[in-house]
């Protein structure tokens, strides 16, 4: 009776609410489009298929790492070791090509295996020893990078030792879409779908959203977080393989400094840094946005010196925008509440 009528607004709200939620991804996508359009205005070649291909290729690695990072961040953790893992896996794969002449496909397997192993270490220390993941993965960043250096030791992997079929993945296209992009998109869709439609996936959000409640709901927190780290590591390892395929060469410098770029992309992508919300699609779009920005700056013939500053400013803007959305959302939700309670 009274309650019914009084409650209607809250139902009405929800449609607007879900709009807001979608707005995150949509907003970023729009931003990308806007940048492309604006850039194309003063350089009409920026929208060429070739140029678009380049944008996709350029973003794909960070996007891939962003997928794993999202899984971790959603659980209120963070993985700073992805850059180092990428570098290590890239070199080891190359080294195996050079000396063991392993088949091209196994390169990917190796990469994923290496990454997963490191991820397992991260996950173990974080969950079983209950050490803040930021510290764990920061330490692993140093350790893995050092290990990489010891192994590389001034050597390089040169293009001629890498199977053509392997490097093909780095540049071949299907209907104009780079393989690299396809692989990443597949991963994004797969993980995104899993995180949305399987219980384990939803558990990740629950854990990040309210750990204590998650425990009460009987969610296996340790196992889930561990898995998240393993996946993040595995994807970083796969990233190493793709890095090698893309650049056809690698020394010890592969992936240096990626970690912060990845976190930045993820945050720009609308993933809450303290967990509970955000999607891998958003993260991937975030990566695309950052890469589009830096390419747009070159393409707009803006002095290279301005690149970083503008990227930084846009990054802050993106974070602020996302916050603004959340705040408005919460406001609406709050005001929708209570209505039914005047009986």
């Amino acid at each position, binding site marked *: 009776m009274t*309650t*019914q009528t009084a*409650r*209607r607004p*809250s*139902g009405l*709200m*929800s449609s607007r*609410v*879900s709009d807001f*939620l979608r707005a995150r991804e949509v907003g970023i996508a729009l931003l990308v489009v806007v940048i492309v359009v604006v850039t194309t205005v003063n350089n009409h070649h920026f929208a060429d298929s070739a140029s678009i291909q380049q944008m996709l290729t350029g973003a794909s690695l960070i996007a891939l790492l962003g997928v794993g990072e999202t899984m971790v961040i959603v659980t209120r953790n963070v993985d700073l070791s992805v850059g180092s893992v990428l570098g290590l896996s890239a070199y080891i794969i190359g080294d195996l090509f050079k000396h063991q002449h392993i088949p091209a496909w196994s390169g990917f397997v190796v990469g994923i295996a290496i990454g997963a192993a490191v991820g397992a270490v991260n996950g173990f220390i974080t969950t079983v020893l209950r050490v803040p993941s930021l510290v764990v993965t920061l330490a692993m960043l140093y350790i893995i990078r050092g290990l990489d250096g010891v192994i590389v030791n001034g050597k390089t992997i040169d293009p001629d030792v890498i199977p053509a079929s392997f490097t093909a993945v780095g540049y071949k296209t299907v209907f104009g879409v780079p393989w690299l992009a396809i692989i990443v998109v597949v991963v994004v869709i797969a993980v995104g779908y899993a995180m*949305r*439609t*399987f*219980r384990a996936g*939803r*558990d990740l*959000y*629950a854990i*990040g*959203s*309210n750990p*204590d*409640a*998650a*425990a*009460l*709901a*009987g*969610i296996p927190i340790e196992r889930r977080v561990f898995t998240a780290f393993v996946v993040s590591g595995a994807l970083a390892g796969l990233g190493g393989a793709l890095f090698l395929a893309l650049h056809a060469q690698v020394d010890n410098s592969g992936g240096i400094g990626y970690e912060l770029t990845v976190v930045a992309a993820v945050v720009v992508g609308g993933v*809450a840094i303290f967990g*509970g*919300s955000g999607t891998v699609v958003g993260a991937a779009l975030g990566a695309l946005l950052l890469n589009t920005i830096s390419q747009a700056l070159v393409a707009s013939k803006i002095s290279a010196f301005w690149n970083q500053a503008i990227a930084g400013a846009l990054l802050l803007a993106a974070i602020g925008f996302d916050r603004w959305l959340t705040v408005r*959302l*919460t406001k609406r*939700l*709050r*005001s*929708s*509440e*209570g209505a*039914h*309670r*005047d*009986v």
Partner: protein
Amino acid sequence: MAGDGGARGALPTEEPVLVLEHAQKSFGAVQALEDGSITLYPGEAHALVGENGAGKSTLVKILAGVHRPDAGRLLINGAAVSLAGPAAARDAGVSIIYQEPTLFPDLSVAENIFIGRQPTGPGHRIDRAEMRRLTREIFARLGVELDPNRPARGLSVADQQIVEIAKALSFNANVLVMDEPTAALTGVEVERLFTVMATLRGQGAAVLFISHRLEEVFACSQRVTIMRDGRFILTAPIAEVTIDDIIRSMVGRDLDALFPKTETQPGDAVLEVDHLSSQGVFEDISFTVRSGEIVALAGLVGAGRSEVARAVFGIDRRTSGKVLLAGEELPNGQPGAAMAAGMALVPEDRRQQGLVMDMGIDQNIALASLRRLSSFGLIRRSSERALAKTWAPRLQLKFGTLRNAVSTLSGGNQQKVVLGKWLAREPRLLIIDEPTRGIDVGTKAEVHRILDGLVADGMAVLMISSELPEVLGMADRVLVIREGRMTADLTRAEADEQTIMRAATGVSSEAA
């Protein structure tokens, strides 16, 4: 044996579905539960009553598999079980509504209800449509209309409680335990809940529910179990006991001792609140607190009392209205200024707001007086310890050493530390929110005695309490707040359960 007797008296034929015997549980210093015993039969509604801190929630959490009992035995359907965790309890057919809502702000209402066991279609894919349908179904049973897709973020306390209830119902468990489910609900919602309980019982489920509202106990339960100081006192068919019996067994002494009250002559106004409003939380609140009187803010949980207190103290900004302390208007949103003017606020949640749990007792007591305790900008450790040394005995604090972290103290003693922290500032006005929430019965009387002493010495006290006995026992005047609006301003003489309940719920209390 009284328990067994009562049990046999009630439903001799059936086998009990759940039996807890002589469960014990202690948290560090606090013996939360010394002898928790309860027997539930299929198809019965069983009330569990006891003062704050009696150990009800602890007992519940043992049934929930959250706490493992230090001693005692749990039988479900006649078989002894040891619950490895909340999940295990659920699988054993026990579903719980916790006293504090445990929601995931970022997840949809529907998902909050089904997290971890969402309905799945082929390939273990979550069937969202089905999940929504089920959610709507449950809400329909509860007669409420809440959008299943809306995130839990920003749900009101009451709505949160409703989601919790829906969650518990969704298990179709054969034992349903509800820890103060009605605390945040209005009469109508309470009625609906009772109807649902009735149907569940009809289906042969046992319902255990905790409430501080005794009329509810009589309205809908067949048997009642009473606890005091962590011990089982008795179980009896509701027909065989009266409210007075229950209260006597709950409190273990007569109420006067629990609510000491010296008659004082109120002095002049200390706090004047003038048309205070806070967008969307409360509207146009005006009242005065004079020195030497206790004014109580009564109302349902979620009514906005704490918000009023927070706005007065300056934790939240007010959108309009004035706050005057001893005639001086206070700046908006500046607790520091309020403190300087002689105001103190003992917040409702000591674990989060009242105390820095990992700091020592002395440091917590000093936290609000640091400036006074330091010379040349340096904290004088000696004076800091001296301060604690003077207040600990005055509040009859039980502790190891003053350096111990307050997290090692019992709830009641924690509350005393918070009191000490603020009394150390010798405030003109003490705002105290839920002074005895989660405090065991002995301490509770002490706290009341302390309050009484303070007003006797001419302090002005604004007390927020969800417990009518406390309000009735301690207050000189009672202000009732409902939905953020002031609905009654009663003198000690006018105030009684009915009037207050009516003002608080807006429905005649026969309904509740």
